[in-house]
């Protein structure tokens, strides 16, 4: 025990003397939380749109005004020919062009279907899907009004009766867990998970390999501290830093971004301890396995930084991934912790719902430590 304390003390001193590193280890996660919390949003609004009106009748202008006044679109002006539309889409100045065909007004006045065309920039499929949804919603609304008007004129229904007639089934949507559909709530709480997988491994990744490269590891090889004592002592300060970071991020998510925390605090704290152990453990394991600091950093970046965003369910849910990505997602602790965050934050649940994932996290941490213990030898590489 005293040996662990001594090793941890040595590690603490080393960290504290490196002022820049010590400062950065707190500044980086908080700063990234700030940037991503505001920036990493998927609420696509104000899509830049241009309108190509071939018809130029009162009806076509009315139709165009639907897009001009919609809060989902940002009207960039009319275009006069197809090549101009192509140029705007190519440069990314607009993401959609609405083409109103010849005879739009004439067809509608004589009670016939009228044609429009929507050209979308398809490079980012999510944005394209959302834009398409907005366009369809506007078209459905316009069609309903046209039909209601038609019923009043031709079939002689009263206006309110016609309204009901064209819209017999309403869809009442109840948004669960996130009533305002605020992506910042979901993103801010999940960011805790992503940033805790991104930053702490970088803290620990160099822990062992640095001593290997500088040769200081021979002091450990020659000392009477056991392998386990060395690893625990090594992990201690980094774990504390990461845990403090976790608390800071938690505070930021709740107070700065207003994410509601409705669940059990103790369950969340316990899960966070387990998760921070896992994420610092990943860095330590990499540090044990590789031979150079460069390799340790590259591997940490490739193995933790990218998946923390991609496969953790931060932006796209794990359920909609295919099997290959789901396997990758299951290999990282973030998926399990992400589920706990979701149930503790937005869903307002606690222990009963999270114990299974906690068990996985605990097993994960234990496995990391066991592998690290097995791979770390007190004899230098032969």
């Amino acid at each position, binding site marked *: 025990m005293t040996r662990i304390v001594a090793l941890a003390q040595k590690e603490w001193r080393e960290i504290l003397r490196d002022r820049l590193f010590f400062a950065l280890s707190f500044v980086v996660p908080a700063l990234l939380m700030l940037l991503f919390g505001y*920036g990493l949003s998927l609420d696509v609004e104000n899509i830049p749109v241009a309108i190509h009106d071939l018809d130029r009748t009162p009806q076509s202008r009315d139709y165009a005004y639907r897009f001009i006044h919609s809060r989902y679109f940002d009207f960039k002006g009319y275009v006069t020919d197809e090549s101009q539309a192509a140029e705007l889409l190519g440069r990314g100045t607009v993401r959609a062009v609405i083409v109103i065909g010849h005879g739009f007004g004439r067809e509608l006045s004589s009670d016939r279907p*009228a044609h429009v065309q*929507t050209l979308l920039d398809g490079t980012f499929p999510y944005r*394209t899907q959302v834009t398409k949804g907005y366009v369809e919603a506007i078209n459905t609304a316009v069609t309903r009004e046209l039909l209601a008007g038609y019923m009043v004129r031709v079939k002689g229904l009263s206006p309110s009766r016609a309204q009901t007639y064209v819209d*017999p089934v309403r869809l009442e949507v*109840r948004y669960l867990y996130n009533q305002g559909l605020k992506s910042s709530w979901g993103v801010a709480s999940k960011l805790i998970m992503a940033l805790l997988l991104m930053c702490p491994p970088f803290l620990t990744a160099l822990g062992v390999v640095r001593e290997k490269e500088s040769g200081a590891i021979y002091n450990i090889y020659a000392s009477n501290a056991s392998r386990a004592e060395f690893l625990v002592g090594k992990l201690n300060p980094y774990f504390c830093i990461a845990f403090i970071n976790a608390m800071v991020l938690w505070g930021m998510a709740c107070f700065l971004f207003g994410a509601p925390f409705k669940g059990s605090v103790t369950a969340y704290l316990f899960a966070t301890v387990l998760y921070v152990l896992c994420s610092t453990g990943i860095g330590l394991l990499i540090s044990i396995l590789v031979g150079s*600091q460069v390799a340790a950093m*590259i*591997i940490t970046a490739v193995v933790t930084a990218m998946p923390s965003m991609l496969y953790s369910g931060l932006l796209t849910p794990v359920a909609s991934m295919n099997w290959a990505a789901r396997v990758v997602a299951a290999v990282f602790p973030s998926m399990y912790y992400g589920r706990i965050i979701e149930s503790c934050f*937005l869903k307002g649940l606690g222990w009963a719902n999270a114990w299974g994932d906690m068990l996985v996290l605990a097993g994960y941490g234990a496995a990391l430590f066991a592998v690290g213990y097995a791979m770390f030898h007190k004899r230098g590489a032969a």
Partner: protein
Amino acid sequence: MSAASLGNVLGADRAARLRVWLRRAWALTVKEYIQLFRDTILVLFMAYAFTLDIYVAGVGVNWQLNNAGLAVHDSDKTWASREVAGRFRAPYFRNEGSVSTVEEGQRLLDQGRLMVVLDFPPRFGADILRGRQTSVQMQVDTANSAIGSLATSYGGEIVGRYGLERALNVPELDMDKIHGVPFIIDETRAWYNQNQEDPWFMALAEIISNMTLLSILLPAAALAREKERGTVEQLMVSPLSPVQILAPKILAMGSVILAGLAFGVFGVIIGVFHVPVRGSLPLFFAVSALYIAFTAGIGLLIATIARNMAQVGMLTVLVFAPMIFLSGAWTPPEAMPSWMRLLMDCLPMHYMLDAGFGVLLKGQGLGELWRELLGICALGAPVLGLSLWRFRRQFG
């Protein structure tokens, strides 16, 4: 250029000096190559970053509503409710059958086993037959707001279409069969990616992200290592200028990254995902080479600031994380607040992404890409210059 013609252009004396200069720089480049390739684990991981990682990101991650679990709480049990529920179908929704109580649906939503529960009121079918307005309730898990709003949008579309069909009294909203009523018929075309294949977007975004990551980290680590071990002092007392010390690092790391990129583009992006190359591949690689060189400048700047590798690690996260995740590869710029978009315009990777998609998917040429090229150069050159200046001041 042959030695003789070089002599003619510059004069024999200056040509000889240039040859020595180049030979020295080359010797250092070879040293960087050897050092890089001796680190087997590192090389393996770079290979992984440009192949398997791209593949998994391409096939695995998608941005569409896919396979969302749905259950029905049907208090009506008529043809109408079954008809509407039946329209929530694959690939967007996965019908998990019915739940007998509202509480059961709530419990399944809580556990994350379901994403949507549809609730049909009693007399739903009877109301429709009688021409009375009725409603169906849709409970959506919006903990992930992006997917939640897609589900809502599809739900609205399905129910809206059903309503119009009932109103027109047609079995299916077939555009050719609707006559004699005013109606908007919309034809949607997604340019550049007709079938909306997610892998095209994801794989390209991922390979450019990985390229950025390695371009920052490799040169930063290479220089910081020399500083930490003190070998940089040896280089300073050798007859090498600061440019001769830094340029080989960019050249060696950059060429390896470019080779990896080519491997990934030909092997995975074209080979597996069949991304149509509508523009010129040489142009794509030329822009990438320029981008890698300038991004390496960021890495070198980090290395001049950091005293040891641990600091390099933290500084790299600080720089590359915003650079990659806010550049438009992960969230569309349209979703960002305006001040964030200003920041985005300062990220070189934003221009690289536009240029990459522009050349490969849109078939743009040099004439259309001048803005992107200008962005990459105008942001990269000062950083590269600054790192050179700092390096010279530290060790000159």
